[in-house]
């Protein structure tokens, strides 16, 4: 119940408060109704029948639900109001089965493409513009707020004002095909200074290879057609069919939150993605020899 016990954004806080009101309220109402039932079973139900059919059956729920509606509308109104401060705008596009993320680089004025991991500055309002490149997905990070569908042809908006640094897991919440189950994402909330540093790093071109192995890896990347789907800013324009890998080494997880980003898993991902996430659009590269795979993993791993 993380979103109930540890909400980490302004919006999630409101949702958690309402969640507890509802859970406690529903439990109390269930108990009360069952007490009434037990009284009836023991033929000890007091009062005229009308008190129950009209009083308990119509008047009581109407009053209670009207109060609930009022509470609901008033609480939600706060959530809907656009933030007064200048929000950070992020674009998220759902794909089968990964998340394309776009940030605006203040230095160069361009939009940069990342994948599967968002960073947010604590305390600053964020507006996420959501759409989809293929089917309907749903962006959902429970501890940071409610979900919003990504619908092709529409741009939906989700507001998040994160409160403190931390790492949060999210998962696609609208059935989107074979690997809907393995379409997670992570959101890292940084201090504002860390966030600016992170954004500047992400906006830069791909880190040049540090040693010979990594250089072999870069050559392998170009030679084996990886750029047909993946972009590496400064190395290959690539395409938008697959996630941008310019800073893949900086991410906590790979494959849309499927496996942790470690050297061994990165290598296994390239060699045998179909074994880990069957049906994913990227083929396995089992046919590459061990040395090439090592080099590729080493190169991509150092793209921080």
């Amino acid at each position, binding site marked *: *119940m*993380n*979103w*109930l016990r540890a909400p980490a954004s302004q919006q999630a806080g409101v*949702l958690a408060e*309402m*969640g507890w009101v*509802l859970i406690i309220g*529903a439990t109390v*109402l269930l108990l009360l109704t*069952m007490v*009434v*039932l037990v*009284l*009836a*079973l023991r*033929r000890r*139900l007091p009062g005229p*029948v009308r008190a*129950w*059919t*009209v009083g*308990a*059956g*119509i008047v*009581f*729920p109407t009053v209670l*639900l009207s109060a*609930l509606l009022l509470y609901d509308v008033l*609480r*939600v109104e706060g*959530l*809907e109001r656009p933030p007064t401060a200048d929000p950070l705008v992020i674009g998220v596009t759902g794909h*089968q089965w990964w998340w394309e993320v776009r940030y605006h680089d203040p230095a160069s004025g361009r939009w940069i493409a990342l994948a599967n991991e968002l960073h947010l500055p604590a305390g600053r309002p964020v507006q996420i513009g959501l759409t989809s490149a*293929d*089917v*309907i997905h*749903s962006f*959902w990070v*429970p501890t940071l*707020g*409610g*979900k919003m*569908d990504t*619908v*092709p*042809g*529409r741009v*939906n908006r989700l507001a998040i004002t994160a409160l403190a640094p931390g790492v949060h*897991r999210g*998962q*696609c*919440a*609208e*059935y989107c*095909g*074979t*690997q*809907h*189950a393995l379409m997670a994402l992570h959101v890292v909330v940084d201090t504002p200074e860390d966030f600016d540093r992170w954004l500047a790093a992400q906006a830069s071109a791909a880190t040049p290879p540090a040693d010979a192995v990594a250089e072999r890896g870069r050559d392998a990347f170009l030679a084996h057609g990886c750029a047909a789907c993946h972009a590496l800013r400064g190395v290959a324009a690539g395409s938008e069919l697959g996630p941008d890998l310019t800073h893949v080494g900086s991410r906590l997880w790979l494959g849309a939150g499927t496996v942790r980003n470690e050297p061994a898993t990165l290598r296994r991902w390239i060699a045998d993605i179909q074994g880990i996430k069957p049906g994913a659009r990227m083929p396995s590269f089992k046919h590459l020899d061990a040395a090439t795979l090592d080099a590729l993993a080493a190169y991509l791993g150092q793209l921080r």
Partner: protein
Amino acid sequence: MTSVAGAGPIEAPREGLPNSLPRPPGELERLRAAWWMPTGWRRFSAVNNTYIGVLYIGTAFVFLLLAGALALLMRAQLALPDGQLVSAGTYNQLFTMHGTVMMFLFAVPIVEAVAVYVLPGMLGARDLPFPRLSAYAYWAYAFGGFAFFATVFVGLAPDSGWFMYPPLSSRSYSPGLNADFWLLGIGFIEISAIAGAVELIIGILMTRAPGMTLARMPVYAWAMLIVGLMIVFAFPAIIAGTALLEMERAFDWPFFDANRGGDPLLWQHLFWFFGHPEVYIIFLPAAGMISSLVPAVAGTPLAGHRAIVAALMAVGFFSFALWAHHMFSAGLGSLSLSFVSAASLAVAVPAAMQIFSWIATIGRGRLRYDTQTLFLLGFLFTFVFGGLTGIMVAVLPFDWQVHDTYFVVAHFHYVLIGGVVFPLFAMIYHWLPLVGGQRLDERLGRWVFGLIFGGFHVAFFPMHIAGLLGMPRRIYTYPAGLGWEWPNLISTAGAFTLASGILLLTFDVVRMLRRPSKDHDDPWRAPTMEWIPNEDFATRSIPNVESRDPLWQRPSFVEEVVSGQHWLPGTVTGLRETIVTGARRADLRHLIILPGPGWLPLVAAFGTAAYFLLLTVKWVITAHAFGLVAIVCTIAWLWQTDRLPEATDAEVGRGVRIPIGAGGRASHSYWATVILVIVDMTIFASMAFAHIHVAMLGDTCPPLGAALPAALPLLVAGAGFVLSALLLGGCARPLATRAMSLSRALPWLTAAAALAVAAVFVLVQAHDAAGLAPRAQAWGATVAALLSYVGLHAVLIVLFAGYLVGRAGAGLLTPRQRASFDNCALLWWCGCAQGVLVAVLPHATAWAMR
């Protein structure tokens, strides 16, 4: 017409009972002979409601077990993290089929099936008003349903979820036949449901026992009446939606493709406009059953009878305003969302009203703790629980967290299993003696209840936790370390326990049904009339009702009915008969003849099922051959209808005579056709909605690249439709006083039909000349869809014309016997009206969008 017809409603004789003893010799034998039940394999041609009802209930129960087996596979896969039991692709087929089969092949059919079996008896009618229609609906459902389920075994089962959202379910993302099987498979259920609705509405409003005023009608009958009306308005939306999606997949008409001006949300609106009322269509019968059960087990009349009826109406009505609560995270505007949230909360009030009325009834009665009572109590706890989680998810912010998680899965299983399956199981224990006289074993019943109730809560309560912990729906596996392991493992254990309880129940039911039949001797001392001893002909005489609880009102009531002292204790014409009564006060109106066994409905159903299934696998020629078989059988079957015997009136009681048959608006077939017209117009309205929705999405209407047709051809086409309708009406003028001759029918009907067909041609030509390109843009696709629908009506109009010419030529269209004409005319006029509307709609929409 006879002298009785103009005299107004006919009252029962003031003194004593309608008929007296002793009954004439041979009367009972003649009645039995009229209602003969074929034996051996010829049994399949039987059409009476008790036979079809048992088949229907049994088939739906089989689908419960099949879909339940799929669920067990799912639970086995989810018991542990990183499950390896089934692949992602297989799991996605499993959950899609589990939902689809449960909702379409179990839930709606079983509540209809129970009504088919029980309702005529409860209302005092001898059978449903259209026995062959029920038979057709059942066989189409059986053939189609099993063929559809078979796709699981060949890996062709649909896998885009039971609600099949595009773009995932469109051709680009679901290229295989799987989605087409779903779309065409649902077709059978749509047919069965509409047929069921016709039977229910007409049966409840027109064939109740004399004296059963609406105020005296049992709550279960009210529930089924409301359900019938809901089906009429809800199912057309999905009929239209599935037609559009299939056209998108087959012809590439981009209704839901955002790249070409379409909108995926259009599907969601159409689907959920059906989908939400659908769950109340499933629940209200169960609420009606509970209202039948509680008085019987508590031994006291239902508290708040009138308020419960009002509550049922309120639920039925409100349910049509709630569909968008399934779309709370889709990005709709906040004003509409707030309204829907408010309405979703409001619908809890009539539900609460019923709950407390049932509790109050229990409170003033003396409860007998038979197994059905245990299920009743289980229902009260579980349904209230599910209703409360329903209130929770109606609150927008809460739904933003739990939508599409296992919390919602828990919620709807609580209200569907708790709110529908528990009442169904209660009624199996309660009503089984009606079928073969045997009661189910009480000792076993305690085990059945314990395993089912316990297993259910162990299976589904943890899902609330899993959902609140962040576990989304429809995932074939989950990683370890998120805290989802324990709820899933416990759920799986519960699921298998629940399944064992259901299997135990199945075993007991089969065992009891195999025992030889005997009289049931009214084991529960229930108040309603389905408990009057009966045979194939239903009750010996049609009861004269004077109270809400007839069997409690007079101890001698049952004896009177069984000995033939109430209405129509025999058969007047030697054929199967029942009495049509007035809708409000159930005063005697006229006698109707009901059909006996026949093969046409079954063969037509097989042809229909084969047509749709073969079309799915693209065996077009064979498909059309079977379609032809279905059409020929249907025409042959219709040819047998609308035949009155020589006798014009019948004696149903001492000195009380009523007409045999009735024409015009007094005819039950007329009102059945009116219902079909409403269904037709609602399908049309859904398609028009699609057009308007798509038009509103664009910046201009018509969008860039498309053009409106010229006005003149549209006026010509409109005039053609109007003229066709007028000619049809004109053809019928002399029918009021003399039979229609071939020499009149042929030219008038040919001209009327030709005008309608020509009007369609002109319409299509006009759009074609304006450059209609359905594949290029959704706007054009919606226009093409509307044109196709009108074209379909033109084909029907041609068929009607031919049929009516045939009837006239055979001398079968007379002033007394004119239902064929009147009913065809209704549908014909409906088609012409739609033609006029389609001629006008694109311009009207564009004008409104300026």
